[in-house]
Structures are given as C-alpha cells and as structure tokens.
C-alpha cells in the first residue's frame, strides 16, 4: 500500500514536472544556465576569440579586483551615485505623489506631464541632456542671459557624474511616483479624519499618517532604486562615449564590466568576477535595507 502510494506520488510529480518542462527548459537555458556559466567564467582565465581556452585560476580574478585601481574608482563612483540618487528620487517621488493626490485643479494633466520623462528612453534623454549641458547649449545660454559665465559641464570631471545624477533623479522619480500614487489611494479617509479631529495640520497629517502608511511601498521603491542605480550603465556610457571619462569620473561598475568583457580581449573571466562581486554587493545592500525598514511592522 505504502509503496504503491509513493509510486503514485512520484508519477504525479513527474507529470507536473513534465507540464512545467517547457518553462523549466527556457528558464534553465536563458537564466539559470547563464548564471552558472558566469560563475564558471569568474574562476577561469578566458580567451573566447579564436581558439577558445579556459584556464582555471581559482580566486585570482577576485583578488585582482582588490588591486585594480579602476575597479575601486568605479565602485566609489557607483556608491556615491547610489547614496545621492536613491534618497533624492524616493523623496521627490513621494512629494510629487502627495501633491498630485491633494485634489488640486488639473491633476490629471500634471499626472501625464510628470510621467512623460519615464516614458522616454533613457538613451534619448541622455542625448537631450547632453545638448542642454553643451557649452553652447540651453543651460549655458540661460546662464549667459542672466549675465553669468557659461561652463563646460561635459568636460569637467568634477561635474560629469553630478550631471548624470540630476538627469536620472528627474527621469526615474515619476515612475516611483506612480507607485506611490496607487498606494495613496489605499489610505482610508477615516485615518485623515481622525487626525483632523485630533487637530493635526496638513504637514502633520503627511508625516504621521501618509508616510508611515506608505512604509511597505517605500521599502519596495528603495530596493528597486538600489538595484537600478547600482546597475547604472547607459547614461554614463553615452555621456563618455564608452570610456568612463573624463578622468574616470563617469566610470561605473557595469561600465567597467562591459569594458573588460568586450573592449579588451581575454578578460572575460575578470569581467564575470566583477559582475559576480556586484551582484553580491547589491544583495548585501538590499538585505541591509530590509533589516532597517522593518517592512512587516504595519500597525
């Protein structure tokens, strides 16, 4: 009896897996396989072009990261970028959402206007911003009009990364704004009424009702923001034409990975090690964020 039932169970399970097999096959081929392959690559010295060769080097690729000056610069740039962009875009998204939810006139119109930057492809946005930042561009012309000297924003290493930050905050905040906007609809009016009865003003209502109630959404927004900003690539790529310049100021970790993987020959293994290290950093950052935000503690 026992044996028979276990056989039946096995058969049922087999049937289940059989039905799942197309999906499993696709997942294994396009997601799990490449991840495993990348891990394999990160422990080898790889030459893909010509006679493909793999040479097992254990942790050499990882120890090389520690000695690589550019990797440290890239990590520093990326960390600076994350630390500034994530709080700014989260705060901006929340403020935008709150104002749009306040029942002002022309709310729908502004909703669309605010959302437009997110709909535009980031490559196009970067190009538009580069024209604006140009020595003869919009911003410099405006400065000139009010009698201030122009500035070469694109050529100055101290400015370049900030210029990208500004653009990215402006472009991604509306996306998170929409998420906040949806969450705001869920806050029951009774809470606000109760607060009003207690004599809370608008600002107090915002800080003591809205913000705490949105905590799980904030947590989501911050995690998505962290992942997105750690993986900054396209903007700095377009900005610097792929070099990470001027003077390594727009070099990000993903851009560095790209350079090692495709620009120089025979460093694919090192690039994979960098990618793996980045994944661990993002994972750690996300875990730390979760620990601090206490997602579950909603009243």
């Amino acid at each position, binding site marked *: 009896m026992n044996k028979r039932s276990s056989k039946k169970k096995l*058969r049922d399970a087999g*049937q289940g897996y*059989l*039905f799942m*097999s*197309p999906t499993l*096959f*696709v997942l294994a081929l396009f997601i799990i396989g490449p991840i495993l392959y990348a891990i394999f690559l990160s422990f080898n010295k790889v*030459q*893909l*072009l*010509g*006679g*493909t060769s793999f040479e097992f080097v254990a942790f050499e690729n990882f120890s090389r990261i520690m*000695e*690589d*000056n*550019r990797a440290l610069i890239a990590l520093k740039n990326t960390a600076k970028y994350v630390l500034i962009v994530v709080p700014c875009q989260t705060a901006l998204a929340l403020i935008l959402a709150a104002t749009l939810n306040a029942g002002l006139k022309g709310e729908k119109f502004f909703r669309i206007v605010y959302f437009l930057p997110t709909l535009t492809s980031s490559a196009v946005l970067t190009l538009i911003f580069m024209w604006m930042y*140009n*020595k*003869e*561009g919009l911003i410099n012309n405006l400065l000139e009009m009010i009698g201030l000297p122009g500035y*070469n924003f*694109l*050529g*100055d*290493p101290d400015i370049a990364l900030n210029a990208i930050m500004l653009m990215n905050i402006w472009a991604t905040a509306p996306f998170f704004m929409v998420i906040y906007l949806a969450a705001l609809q869920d806050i029951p009016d009774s809470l606000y009424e109760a607060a009003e009865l207690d004599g809370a003003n608008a600002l107090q209502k915002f800080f003591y009702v809205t913000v705490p109630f949105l905590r799980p959404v904030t947590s989501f927004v911050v995690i998505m923001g962290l992942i997105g900003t750690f993986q900054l690539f396209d903007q700095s790529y377009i900005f610097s034409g*792929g*070099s*990470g*310049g*001027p*003077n*390594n100021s727009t070099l990000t970790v993903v851009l560095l990975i790209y*350079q090692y993987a*495709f*620009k*120089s*020959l025979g*460093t694919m293994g090192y690039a994979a090690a960098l990618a793996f290290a980045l994944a661990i950093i993002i994972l750690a950052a996300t875990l730390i964020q979760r620990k601090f935000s206490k997602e579950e503690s909603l009243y």
Partner: protein
Amino acid sequence: MKKKWLAGLGMTTMLMGSLLAGCSGSDETNSEGSGGSGGEKVEVTLAGWGGNPSEQKLLKQTIADFEEKFPNIDVKHEVISEQYMDVLKTRLIGGEGPDVFYLDALEAPALIETGVVEPLDEYVTEDFDTEDFEKPMLEAFQVDGKTYGFPKDYSTLALFYNKKMFEETGVEVPKTWDELREVSKALTKDGVYGFGVAPELARLYHIAQASGGEVVKDDKANFASSEVVEALKPIVDQHLEDKTSAQASEVGANWGGEMFGQQKAAMVIEGNWAIPFLEDTFPDVEYGTAELPAINGEKGTMAYTVGYVMNAASEKKEASWKLISYLTGKEGMETWTSKGFALPTRKSVAEKLGYDEDPLRGALVAGAPYATVWQEGANLPIIMNNFNNQFIAAFLGDRPLSDALKDAQEQANSEIQ
C-alpha cells in the same frame, strides 16, 4: 491514468519540438554553397562601418563592378554602424562572423594574435602586385612575415587653417610648433581659438615620441618617461598658460572638423575625412591645408589605415579572396578612392589619380613618407584608453602632467598581464 501521462508527454514533446525548430530555422540558409567552386552562386558577406552617403554609394559601385565581373559571387554588404569592434568580436566568437571585414590597423595585432584572421599569403598571385602598396601601410597588417590583410585606404594628418582669419590677422601658416604657438596667440580673439586640439593619444602619438621617448616599450606603456612628458608639455601649456587652444567640447562642438567649420578655431589638425565633411556641412568656410608643423626640426604626422581581412572560419575562402583582391586591387581601389574620400594605398593608383597635386589633399599625401602608422602591438588600445583618461585631467589643469601620466601608465600596465 496512463493515457493522461501519455497526453502530457505528447504535449511536452510538441512544445519542445516547436521551440527547437524555432531555434534552428535560420541555419539552413547559411550553410549553402560552401567551397565557392562550381556553377552555383556563392554569397560572401562583407562587414564594415558606415561612412557618409556618398562614400557608401562609391562602395556600392565598387561591389557592383565586382559582381559583374564574377557573376557567381554575390556580395552581402553589412553595415555595423556603432561599436564596430564589439559587434564584430561577438559575432566571431559566436561563429557568425562575416567572411570579409574592415579592420583598423590599431586593432589588427590583437585580433591577428587570436588566430581568427586568415593569413593571405598563399592566395596572393603575381599580378596582384603586393609591391605596389605603400610599405608602412602594408606592414600594419603583417605579423611574423605573414600578411593578414591589405590596406584599403589611409589618411594622414594635416594642418587645416582658415584662410580668412589668417589674412585678417596677417600671419603666415606655421612651419614649426613654436611658430604655431606664436601664431595662435595672434589668432585667438572674439571667442575664436587659435588652435583646436584633440587631447588624445591617437593624435598626439608622433608628438609624444618627437623628443626620442617611447610611448610603448616592450608592449607595455612607457609614456610617463621624462622624454614623453617633456614632448607633450607644450600642448598642455598652450591650453593652460597661453589659453590659445581648446578642445572641441569647450566650444560646444563634437570634434575638430566641426569646431573648424563653425569657425571657432583658426587651425585644427585633421585628416582626409574632414575634407568631404567641410564641403558638405560648411561649404562657405575658406580654408587651406598644410603639412604639420615640424618639431625639433623634424617633420612628423600620423597615418591611419584600415584593411580588408578574411575570417579564418569562413567557408567560402576562395570567393572571399576574390573579393579582397578586387577591392584592394588596382581596379577596385581606383573606383573606391576616385572621389577622394579616401587616399589610395597603392602607389600606382595614387599616381594615376594625382592626389599629390590636389590643393587640399596634397599636404596629406606629402605626409605619407614620414608618417607614423597608428599601431603598436596588441596592447595599444589599453594603453591608449588609460592615456586619454588621465591626459585630459592634465590638459584641464586638474593635476600636473607627469603625475597624471605616471598614474595612467601604472594602471595600463596592471591591465596588461
């Protein structure tokens, strides 16, 4: 129960089957007509980057001529417009590389080293006449005595000067770098810079080596040596102290040719590619060209060349060679270079087309005998990247030149392993 199981299996096989079929569908068309002999048509793929429309038309014309001459070979021309080397390398790794492709001399040594480029010596026949090529350009594609490609064209650098500005200021075209600095001072006024400079190794290489220094030594970066730093110092000084030179981005242009066309610089150092650009985009600018100013009494310039090479994994080598030999042969090269978008690397073609007499291109052709070809071993791309990255910091005055170059050299050599 059993039926259900079978049905499940059937469904899965069908799904898997269609998936696999989807993957393999494109293979069949590719494997046709290997070998190249026989009556059937052979398709050869030719990959390169795009040029301006008139250049593209000229290449199409050359290919059409070839197809007429060899009716059983079809040429499929593919344009890779962005990130040419990345795309090409990826395709070569994936076994989907083109049969024939452009290869910049700069990238040639590293790619040849990997063995993906076919040596062409055994294909070459007597009447192809390899002696006819300009030697330095041909040598750019030779490693250990084997020839891996033939240069399709080249360009050197020349000094482009704005005739009107020179007339108004009443100065002569500079013959030495010292003169250039003096002249720049007179020309810099009203938002116009005397000299538009490109702070990149590709343009500064011959200057860097002018005082006897070596930028690359034993395949490693060596540009922090005192001779090189000393040779490059005037470029930085002119920008920071004289304030008579600027890079293109400082005036809102993308490159020297544009800066010159917008009349924001009275002089730039550019190559043949700037001539059709200026003609098309800024036809009103009156300008002349001259050989580059001499340094320490010696003339110098850079030469950039691109060759046609064959994929070692190609299945249609005979047909591919026919294409290469036509494109770099006397007939094909004459068509390709006939409009002057590119300069011919064959002496006989150059003589026939007479570009040395051309008022604008004469200065470029004159530079060919003493030019330094932009190529120095497999590691030059890495060395160049690091140099450019740090040189700009010195150029902008953020840090002293010798420190910047020392850092860049260390970084470059740590990447070369």
